[in-house]
């Protein structure tokens, strides 16, 4: 039927609208009470009997077609509309996030904890002691009597006669041995003071870690083994260790310990002064006089002790060039190790 074709054509033109409002009008125009499709049904009565069924069918088809198409189009348009609204809420995801001040431990704390954890894993206890010490604990009990030349090696800050700022963590050795019976296996860690002029590798305030092991079969070999194990855990499995003769009044035999340079791997660089080795600190077998001072029989027990600088460990491990940085607390320094 010609009219059906024409209406369909008209509908297909009108359905292209982009507005929901227009679409509603289109709906009324074709499907409303006076709409074009409804009007078509009115023409049915003019049709011949045999055609009526056929035409009726065609009009019904057109009606369903129009209804479906409109509903589909409506969904489409609604989707577009919703998207428009969301697009208005678009943000620039490249803007920087909101940052808070956040916390972190000081690099010295981190290194001390690392050192403590390694020795804890090796069965050591961790001890501390006072920074204000007596001459007895800092020197005398450690086999360094008054006027002993070894006192020159540790220029001391005094607060009063025989009262001083500890120059080493070794007084804790004595305090521990006074309190506990062997076997003893401890490290002592903390702040020490020496009247040293300040430069990039010396500070009047520094931190030391000291080890003390007292038992029946502790030997120079186990001292070497212990320091080697610590060194490998702290600086890496490939690090080597070297001992050389040294003198500290509270040990005999005494030794200086060096590790293979972790920066150049022993090839020689500025940090190791082209020797391939980095001196770390003193060690040795506990002097019998020290044991006698704390009522331990040197014929029954023997032991070893060692003392390394915490700053030195940190400087080597993290490539820190100047010891002064630790107490300056420049955030540009601290934040690198958060």
């Amino acid at each position, binding site marked *: 039927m010609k009219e059906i074709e024409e209406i369909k054509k008209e509908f297909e033109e009108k359905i292209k609208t982009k507005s929901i409002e227009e679409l509603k009008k289109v709906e009324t125009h074709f499907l409303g009470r006076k709409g074009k499709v409804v009007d078509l049904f009115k023409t049915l009565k003019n049709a011949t009997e045999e055609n009526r069924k056929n035409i009726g069918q065609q009009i019904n088809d057109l009606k369903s077609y129009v209804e479906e198409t409109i509903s589909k189009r409506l969904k489409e348009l609604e989707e577009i509309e919703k998207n428009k609204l969301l697009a208005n809420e678009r943000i620039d995801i490249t*803007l920087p996030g909101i940052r*808070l001040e956040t916390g972190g431990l000081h690099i010295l704390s981190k290194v001390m904890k690392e050192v403590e954890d390694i020795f804890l894993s090796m069965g050591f206890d961790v001890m501390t002691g006072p*920074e204000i010490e007596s001459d007895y604990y800092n020197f005398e009990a450690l086999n360094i009597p008054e006027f002993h*030349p070894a006192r020159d090696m540790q220029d001391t800050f005094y607060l009063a006669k025989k009262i001083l700022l500890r120059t080493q963590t070794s007084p804790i050795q004595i305090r521990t041995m006074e309190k506990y019976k062997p076997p003893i296996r401890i490290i002592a860690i903390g*702040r020490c003071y020496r009247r040293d002029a300040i430069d990039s590798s010396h500070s009047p305030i520094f931190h030391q870690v000291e080890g003390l092991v007292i*038992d029946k079969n502790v030997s120079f070999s186990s001292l070497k083994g212990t320091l080697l194990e610590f060194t490998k855990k702290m600086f890496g499995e490939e690090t080597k260790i070297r001992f*050389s*003769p040294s003198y500290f009044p509270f040990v005999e035999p005494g*030794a200086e310990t060096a590790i293979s340079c972790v920066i150049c791997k022993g090839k020689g660089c500025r940090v190791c002064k082209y020797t391939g080795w980095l001196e770390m600190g003193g060690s040795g077998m506990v002097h019998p006089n020290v044991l006698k001072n704390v009522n331990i029989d040197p014929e029954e027990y023997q032991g070893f002790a060692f003392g390394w600088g915490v700053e030195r460990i940190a400087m080597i491990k993290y490539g820190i060039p100047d010891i002064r940085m630790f107490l300056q*607390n420049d955030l540009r320094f601290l934040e690198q190790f958060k």
Partner: protein
Amino acid sequence: MIISYKLLKDAFDVDYTPQELSDKLTSIGIEVEGIRDVKHNFKHIITGKIVSMELITETKLFKTMVSIGEEALQIITAATNLEVNNIVPVALPDSILANGLAIKREEFKGFKSNGMLCSYTELGLDPEYLSNEEKVGILILPEDTPIGLKFEDILPIDDTVLELSLLPDRADAFNVNGLARWIETLKARDNGKRADFSKFTPEVNLSFQGETNFEIDIKNPEMCPFYSGRIIKNVNVKKSSLKLRQKLFMLKIRPINNIVDITNFINKFYGQPLHAFDFDKLDEKLIIRLAKKGEKLKTLDEVERNLTDDNLVIADSKKPIAIAGVMGGKSTSVKEDTKNIILESAYFSPKRIAQSSRTLGLITDASTLFEKGADSNFTPIASLIATKLICEETGGIPYKDNAISYLVKPDTVKVRLEKINSLLGELINKEDVKKYFDFEGLKYKDKGSFIEVYPPTFRQDLKIEEDLVEEVIRMKGYNEFRETLLSGEFRGSKRTEFEDFIWFLKDKLVALGLTEIQTTSLINTEKLKIIGLDEEKRLIKLLNPLTEDMNILRPSLLTPMLDVLERNINAGKNSISMFEIGKVFRKDASFQEYMELGIMLSGDKISKNAFKKAFSYDFFYLKGIVEEFLDSVRINYDFEEHALPFMHPYQSAKIISLNKEIGYIGKIKDEIFKNVFYASIYIDGIFNESLFLCNPHSSSVDYKLKNFEDFSIYPTVKRDIAILVEESVSEKKVRETIRHLNISELKCITLFDIYKGIPLPKGKKNLAYSLEFSSMDKTLRGEEIEELIEKIEQEIKIKIGGILRKK
């Protein structure tokens, strides 16, 4: 100690190269810190004698004729320190001086100059080892220097110096002879032989005029076990001869006069400090005794010393004339006009010399040697060697010494093989141990179960068994031992309770967003004055500060933390939130140290941003941190308004726990530092102080994880209320009024608004709270909650006269 390699090589026939020698010495504990080549260019420099000199008129130049042997050269010089007959270094044409100057034949003011007379700088000599006289103008050589001698025959043109860093117990290597003895040990070790030290004790033959008839009286034999005095008459004191001057040069000794030069030479070469007195200035006798308080002595360095009974002195019948083993006196010293001397060679106790020199603060070459321990067997030999040299140099007539000895043989030291093995953790056989002792030339006897060693007098380091174990390590090699792991029982892999607690606190503070700092504990008094913390009697001062900047121990973390703040602000930082846990120090009954926490905030938690969401630190943010912190250690606390000298008087408070002050909080006064909030908490105050050291008892604070506590499965109901009260009623009072009702269903009270002003009546404020209710066993109904709120309303009305309004 600095030592010439050439000297060692020439005197002791050393075969090792400087590098080999350094490595070997270092391996046995005589550390060579540096090897330095010293090169001179003395080509075409010879000695010449000035035969005539005259000033060229209207100039400052001299025309000199200088004899160089067969011929004499005309040389023009500007030097003013010359006299006829002086022998000087002459740089001939074609020589090149140390400063790079090439010498040519030249003409000055129409006078030909065929070379140049040289000063020490032009020769490139180190001024540290020259006399003052030698440093003025042209270098004047000793009178007996031959003329026409090549300068390189006087001083070596190339040498290597070894810089030794010697350990305090290595007294036997502090002199050339002793060092050479160790090189002999190295050779013996290389060859597997016993060291032969006989050549290190020279034979000296002298014929004496007679006895030294001068009384010597040792009052304190334990401090001076050996003293020898020897008269040498008719000495001619002057500059040293060329031969001696050359020795001084090699040993880096600054020349003074021939006698002093010889005593210095013996000291450096043989390790025996000697002293020469002007015999004619002594009264009656020599007494070795302790000084009496009040006695004074002007020492050689022109300083008047106040003596005490710490000081051992050499005195004559009237007065002290020398501080024994430290420094001689001025009035009896050897000078140009001295005719007769008495030469002292003595052995003093190391302890006494250390005490004497340290109490005086006077450390000399002699005291350094004596306190490490001189070789008492060598003391009389050193006197003989010196006497021979003195007689050769000065034409003096020697007398036999008057020597008094209380010396005893050094104790023998026993060493057991078991001790060696147990200390070293390795089995070493007896033959090897004996071999090591042989390398060191030690005398010993194998007594079966032990070896008995007879230490020579120069080995002050061998006193106990362990000392000999060290010799085994040194001779075998420090790195020739295996590494073993620790075995056996041990207590335990624990930190002290206090250390555990500190780590817990640090982690907590970091979780609260704070950055840890560690500051200096040595600060300056001035800084404290600014903040009013300079309570003089409680400050701990250093007796010997390194600088005035660091003259006291910090009584608080505040000043060093402010310094850190300032440093970072100057470096361009705007915001800081930091904490430190560290020791502070105060003088109470005694010197005390306390662990303190400082928290400092300044600037923004969230800095200004594009989203208008900035947040600045303030009093209540800090208070929140402190509350979180104190909650984590589960202690009861309270804040009490309290003015501190460095805080804003109306924005500061004490923190109280169980009637004890445990800290403070507040805003730092603007005039000290703008916009800084600071809180301090006394860590010892919240932790049992008896736990301070190595104490295994449990702590009074309980910060560790607790057991699980059940919570309600029924819904929580929220109600907002407003309470109108007098402005003078503190917020805390309102909250506590509600809390005191002990309503078990009331789980949480949150203040969310404070309002004053219109339309409220004057003097009133409105506090808005959000209340949370829940029950463990049912869902709460509306009317049940209404009942509870009515209860609160009544209580508020009765207790604080407030009006509650529901929302």
